[in-house]
């Protein structure tokens, strides 16, 4: 048994870490319920006024819709293509495989602004600047590595043996994929999809180059708003974003287990 003093110290350390990580978020949440037109902490009173303000403002509403649409569309694209790439790359017995994986993973390593700038130049070169789908594709580029990484990790050597077993039992390659491979890597795919959605939903570095007055994503709107206004509406919208992403994290935990998403090992004991 550990000494009481040591246990207290560990608990204090954990509480301090939690406060450091979550404290600022809690402050933002507290500010959002201010009844007054300026952001102060601690809040003086309680009101849902700024939530209503945000939800009734056509500009905020448009940005929420745009961000949700882009996040949804880009995560559907990268989940499909990323899964396909991961499955294909696992089977590709080539010296170039690891190199190609590194290239596909590179948006994760490059500074976001550089990637954003590169995407801007590219769309400007092909004359597509201003089209709404450029934002979706731009987000797809930066969220792609998350899906690839998680699905690739979920496809272990064991998965290949299960696939072989299915084939010898009479399953065609297509049936094998849907009956064996997909169920085994489903937590990886799902985790990748949720990550892609969250990363897209709060992205600034790429959106800032591709948005235009008709297409202002939520993070960009927040950024613009805090430059000329101090109302707690930003805190209100931020709180809503925290609730949405937090809810999605809970969803992963429920379905596959966060650990299996990060570890990439399908945990079938659940």
């Amino acid at each position, binding site marked *: 048994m550990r000494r009481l003093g040591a246990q207290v110290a560990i608990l204090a350390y954990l509480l301090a870490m939690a406060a450091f990580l979550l404290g600022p978020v809690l402050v933002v949440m507290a500010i959002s319920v201010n009844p007054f037109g300026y952001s102060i902490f601690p809040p003086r009173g309680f009101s849902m006024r700024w939530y209503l303000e945000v939800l009734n403002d056509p500009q905020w509403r448009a940005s929420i819709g745009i961000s949700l649409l882009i996040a949804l569309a880009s995560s559907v694209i990268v989940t499909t293509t990323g899964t396909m790439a991961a499955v294909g790359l696992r089977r590709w017995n080539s010296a170039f495989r690891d190199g190609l994986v590194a290239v596909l993973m590179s948006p994760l390593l490059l500074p976001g602004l550089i990637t954003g700038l590169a995407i801007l130049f590219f769309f400007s070169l092909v004359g597509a600047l201003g089209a709404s789908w450029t934002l979706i594709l731009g987000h797809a580029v930066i969220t792609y590595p998350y899906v690839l990484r998680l699905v690739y990790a979920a496809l272990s050597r064991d998965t290949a043996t299960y696939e072989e077993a299915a084939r010898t039992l009479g399953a065609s390659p297509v049936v094998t994929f849907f009956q064996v491979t997909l169920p085994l890597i489903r937590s990886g795919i799902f985790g990748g999809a949720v990550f892609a959605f969250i990363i897209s939903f709060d992205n600034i570095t790429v959106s800032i180059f591709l948005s235009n007055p008709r297409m202002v994503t939520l993070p960009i709107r927040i950024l613009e708003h805090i430059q000329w206004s101090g109302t707690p509406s930003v805190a209100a919208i931020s709180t809503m974003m925290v609730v949405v992403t937090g809810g999605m994290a809970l969803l992963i935990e429920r379905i596959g287990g966060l650990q299996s998403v990060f570890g990439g090992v*399908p945990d079938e004991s659940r």
Partner: protein
Amino acid sequence: MSRVSVRNIRKVYGGVTALNNVGFEVGDGQFVSLLGPSGCGKTTTLRVIAGLVEPDSGRIEVDGRDIVNDPPERRNMGVVFQSYALFPHKTILENVAFGLKMRKTPAADIPRLAQAALEMVRLPSVGDRYPRQISGGQQQRVAIARAIATRPSVLLLDEPLSNLDLKLRMQMRVELKELQRQVGITTVFVTHDQEEGLMLSDRVVVMSEGRVAQVGTPDEIYETPASSFVADFIGEASVFEGQITHSGPEGCVMRTAAGTLLHGVLRTGAGPGGASARLIVRPEKVRIGSAAQGENRFQATVEHLAYAGASTRVVLRLNAQERLIANSVKPDFAIGDTVEISWQAVASSIFTD
């Protein structure tokens, strides 16, 4: 029930020849083992038969029909993998039923046939559990049940017993053989355990470095090995190296570096005088005691005795350089004693390879 012919299979992986002209026959209902050290190509051969590895050239014939271009799902072969490969997301019954479903068995018959397969491996009541909820030995049996549920024409087993502890392995050997006899299914069994290979098989294919070293009944492999590799790999043996001094129809004589003259039977090559050779003698062929018999007779010193239950392993020293191993059922000598030893020329094999 089917005959399988493996013909001239070649497979090269990135410049390394994994299989070099591998060929052998498996008769209808026979149990054939592919036996060899790790890396000899036995598992690759099995995977070629199953259709999981595409050979560079050669044929796989089942009842005379070449199936080398058929994908695995059209080969009708049951495979038991070393890791069992039971689908973790399906129950035991779903695992066993998977092959039946894929092979378009009428839906009404599937539960009954799957249950029958589980009963055949004496696991009638684990159907609704998941693979991780049953023991390794049970998983192994379920893997066999899954492989035979569809009544495949050939059963392929890739070291299925190697992950089990010794006692369970012994028990499963007997059960596996019994099951195979019952079902009467043509079986190819991969193992690196020579005892397992000899015990279970009608015929043994000994492999070494991607080639077939010898094909024969367990008895032939043990008694008349075709090469010094086979003689050394199968069973226990004492090995002497030297030069052939005389070779004729009545036998062959070899002189070791220490000057010992040994009589044996030449198994490979013409063996002209002076050729360097190896002589191999099995422990149970060596007689200890005054009633010496055979062409090879020596005085030896007992160097070590190891009691092994039914018999005792005796290490004998012939001279400063040479030792050999013998078995004694009832040793009436002690370490340090000098004893008469002998064995017949026909009991030792000479190889010039």
